C-alpha cells in the first residue's frame, strides 16, 4: 500500500481524535468520534485485518455513534469543562 495514503489517514486519525477531545459541542464530538472510527477502519483494511475493519465499521462508526447522538440528545449538548 502507498505510504503516502497510510500517512494521510494516520494524520486524519490524530486530527479526529484530538478534535473529539477539544470540541465543546458534544454532538460534534460524537460525529468526530465516528470519523475517527471510520479512519481506523480504513487503517485496519490497509494492514490486512479485514475482520477487525468490518467490526470497526459496524460497531465503531455505525452503532456507537448512534448511541452517542441519542445520549447527547437526551442530556445536554454543551460540555461543562
Amino acid at each position: 500500500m502507498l505510504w503516502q495514503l497510510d500517512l494521510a489517514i494516520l494524520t486524519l486519525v490524530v486530527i479526529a481524535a484530538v478534535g473529539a477531545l477539544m470540541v465543546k459541542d458534544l454532538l460534534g464530538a460524537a460525529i468526530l468520534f465516528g470519523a475517527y472510527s471510520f479512519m481506523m477502519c480504513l487503517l485496519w483494511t490497509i494492514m490486512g485485518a479485514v475482520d477487525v475493519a468490518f467490526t470497526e465499521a459496524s460497531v465503531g462508526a455505525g452503532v456507537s455513534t448512534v448511541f452517542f447522538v441519542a445520549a447527547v440528545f437526551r442530556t445536554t449538548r454543551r460540555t461543562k469543562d
Partner: protein
Amino acid sequence: MKIIGLIIALTTGGFLVYAAVDFPDWADPQSPASTHVSPHYIEKTMEETSVPNIVTAVLADYRTFDTMFETTVIFSAAVACFFILRTFLREEERRERLYRHVLTGVTVRVKEGGKIPPSDDFERIDDSWIPHDLIIKTICRLLVPFIQIFALYVVAHGHHSPGGGFQGGVIFGASIIVLAMSHDLRTVLQRIGEKVVGVLCAMGVLLYAGTGALCLLLGLNFLDYSALAPVLGVGPVMARSHGILIVEIGVAIAVTTAMVWIYNNVSSRGKYDEGL
C-alpha cells in the same frame, strides 16, 4: 486537574511509544506471535475445521472460550444499561400528549384525562417531533429489509468471508434502530417488545453456553464441537464447522438484541414512551 490529566496522558503515550520500539517489525515471520501457534492455525485450520476463513475458526473454535465471555460482556453491558436507565415510576406531573390528525396535519394537544375525538385518523406523536418527512420514512422503510438480508448473509457467510456473529448482529440491530429513528420508538416496540428483547438477549448467550454444555455432556471438552458429530449426523470435522455456525447465530441474536435494548433505554431515558 486538566494539567494533571494532560501530564498523565503524555507520560503514558511516551511510554507506549518507547515500548513500541521493541516490537518486532510488521509482518516479521520470526516474531514470537508468528512462530508459536500461528503456523498451526494457518496450515491446519482447513483440515481440522473445514472453515476457509481462519479468523472465524480461531475466534469461534480455537479461542471460543474468549468469544463466549465477549458475548457475555455485551449482554452485561445491555443489562447494566437497563438497570441504570429504566424507570418504572409514573411521573406525577403528567405532560400533555400530542396527537396529529393524519389527513389534515393538524396537531392536537390532549391534557391528562382528556380524550381525542373518536377517529382512526389520529396518531400519537412525540414532543420533540420533527415534521413528517415522507422521503426519510419511505427510504428507511425500503432499506430495512435489505440491511437485514445483508446482516443474515454476514452471519451465515462468516465461514468464507470476513464477518460473523458480532458484525452481522450489529448490522441487524442497526436496521431496527434505523426504523426507530425514522419512525418512532413505539413503531419498534409494537414489532419487538421489551420483554422479547430481554429474553432473546439472554437466549443468545444461553445458546452459546448451551452448545458448550452439550459438548461436555457428549463426553468431550467444553465447546469442543466435534462431540456434536453424532447429533448433527456428520463427521467430526464438519461438526466443528457446524458448531461454529451455531455459536455465531447465538452471538448474533445476543448482539442484535443488546444493541436494540441499549438504544431503547438511552433514547427514551428509560421510559419507553417517547424515543429519539
